[in-house]
């Protein structure tokens, strides 16, 4: 029995070093050597300052920006505390929140559902092309850019399904708004 305890302890320590130290360090080394930007979170810089990550959503609520989805991460898009709302489908708080959001977003037509629902991570970087197009009139009025130009901007930033098949079409809101700022500086 004593031999078993010794073996179990030694086995734990040796494999802990291999699997818990050597393996992640080796992957980090390889990743940093070959795919540095991706391994570091694809930060976007403007004027030498980091303004976000290409993969992480940011809150946009003003009339002159394309809005992102509601977020339950911290106070909203807190990428240090990712979270969904975890509201069940029959939770009154969910219906009330959706009612408030859809009233704020509505242009008279039905609002695309992703624009008024919180994502799973609270950091969803994307909205659907439907949700982006839906906001064109408001943004156009506030930015003095034609709707046609905005539609072209959305099309340019729409990612279609990966390999033509996987996932869903999507528009990265941060990158779309950065392009909007470049097009019509405020």
């Amino acid at each position: 029995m004593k031999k078993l305890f010794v073996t179990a302890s030694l086995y734990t320590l040796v494999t802990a070093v291999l699997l818990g130290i050597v393996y992640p360090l080796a992957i980090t080394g390889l990743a940093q050597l070959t795919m540095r930007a991706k391994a570091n979170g694809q930060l976007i810089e403007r004027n030498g300052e980091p303004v976000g990550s290409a993969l992480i959503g940011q809150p946009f609520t003003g009339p002159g920006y394309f809005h992102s989805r509601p977020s339950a991460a911290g106070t909203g898009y807190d990428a240090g505390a990712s979270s969904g709302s975890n509201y069940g489908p029959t939770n009154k708080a969910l219906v009330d929140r959706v009612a408030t959001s859809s009233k704020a977003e509505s242009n008279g037509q039905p609002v695309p559902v992703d624009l008024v629902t919180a994502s799973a991570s609270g950091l969803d970087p994307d909205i659907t092309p439907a949700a982006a197009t839906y906001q064109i009139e408001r943004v156009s009025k506030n930015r003095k850019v034609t709707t046609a130009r905005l539609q072209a901007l959305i099309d340019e930033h729409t990612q279609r399904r990966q390999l033509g098949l996987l996932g869903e079409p999507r528009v990265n809101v941060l990158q779309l708004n950065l392009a909007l700022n470049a097009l019509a500086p405020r």
Partner: protein
Amino acid sequence: MTLNGWLQIALFMAAVLLLAKPMGSYMTAVFERRKTVLDVVLSPCERLLYRVTGVNPSEEMPWTQYAVAMLVFSAATLLLTYVVERLQHVLPLNPQHLPGVEPALAFNTAISFTTNTNWQSYVPETTMSYLSQMLGLATHNFWSAAVGLALAIAFVRGIARREMKTLGNFWVDLTRGTLWVLLPISVVFALVLVSQGVVQNFKAYDTVKLVEPQTITGADGKPTTITTQTIAQGPVASQEAIKMLGTNGGGFFNGNSAHPFENPTPLSNFLQMLSIFLIPAGLCVTLGQMVGSPKHGWAVLAAMVVLWFAGTLTTFWAESQGNPALHTVDAAVSQTASREQAGGNMEGKEVRFGIANSALFATVTTDASCGAVNGMHDSFTPLGGMVPMVNILLGEVAFGGVGAGLYGMLVFVVMAVFIAGLMVGRTPEYLGKKIEAFDVQMAMLYLLIFPLLILGFAAVTVLLPNLGLSSLANHGPHGLSEIVYAYTSATGNNGSAFAGLNANTHWYNDSLAAAMFFGRFMMVVPMLSIAGNLASKKIAPATAGTFPVTTPLFTVLLTGVILIVGALTFFPVLSLGPVLEHLLMHAGQLF
């Protein structure tokens, strides 16, 4: 339900089935200690490991010794994780200067990762240092999966061997599973994940300047302006790979596989789902090869595919319908699928995954004992959220966890041949071995411990309101679902959650830890005893009266036994939770 959604689902299953044979044949070679392509590199490492740890690789163990070695090893790894978590504030790789983890939480987490559950009562970004994640948690993602693999292989040997007292050597099976199967695939998979955007670094969390500063109402009712965003980082890809491959499921971040840094693209999502089923599907082939009846392996795999498909169909349908409660708001909401949006119930789902991939992921992660999520199950429609729960309640045998799925399924196989034997009035036989009273008693014990833990703990929690009801995020039948799901997930060693439930309380931390512990180890012991007993039996030649375990009839019988046992046990509680909620939702009631 879109055509594209069905195409993605079909592509996924095609990939799983195509990989089953090569993966299974490789694992047969690994565990029968035959030559493989990786021997050049790994055999010297293996020999060195045995020499350092004092393992005699030619020693054969009876089932009792095998079980004791497994238990002692699990205890040693559990202790290491507990110590690392408690001391993380004085250990390196803690750039956020996080304090040591509280005792109850550290204990719950250590049990959780040791048992392959990966239930998380904590928010990782604000609780665990990088070292705790790597050395305390990711190591368990390897160990607990390798233990599951070893146990499954031991069971298969029990079926294959005749008139022998032993099931193999625990340390050898553990080592070969880790070095030959889990580690090499993880290395490749981790790098592929980085190529999709999964981060892998040791830097402190980044702070970036928001493009549009936000004014929000603070907790004190006064407006506050937020100008920056903190972005959590870490060695994610290395952990993500084994988290999926080992059917562990414990997220590096709170958002788990919904977090863009864990699962950034549809392709990374596809590969994560594939990696959940890769080993469990392969093990069916390994079973067939090791017991000398490849067709039996495929018949078992067929039952798994049937159960998987039924779950996927239900969830995909339910989530595509959207939430009828949202039709009541003043400014209308469009939940209809079109070319430009997936539509459906998008609360708690990511745009890049939409409905099809969220439904598929939820089914796959609970068919297996993975428990990673790319959408929040708590926000699924009642029936869409019932499928993940039912998948776990059926014992996670449709593919199932690494190893755990196969040995769970084999217990059901024992039950199925027993019932088939009763129906024709013959002594039941399984691959030439007589299934006798002891085997059936142990199989029944295995099957009864499970509902006893789930329903027992859930009942106590509901009946004693001071214990757990204040933790609920949702009320009405959905609240019951949250509690039942928590104990289901813990006992089934799944680890996914109806995450609105605040489980970081003394009662939940302790009772869920107990459910996870007994759900793993109390079930493993009867399972191994069946294996030990089977190994000692003679193999009788097949006759015309032998029930064949290679036919579609067997697949149907096996599926039927699983569904009947599950339905008889859990239908009452399901009817009070998700079924009732579904009816009330369509009647327009909110809570």
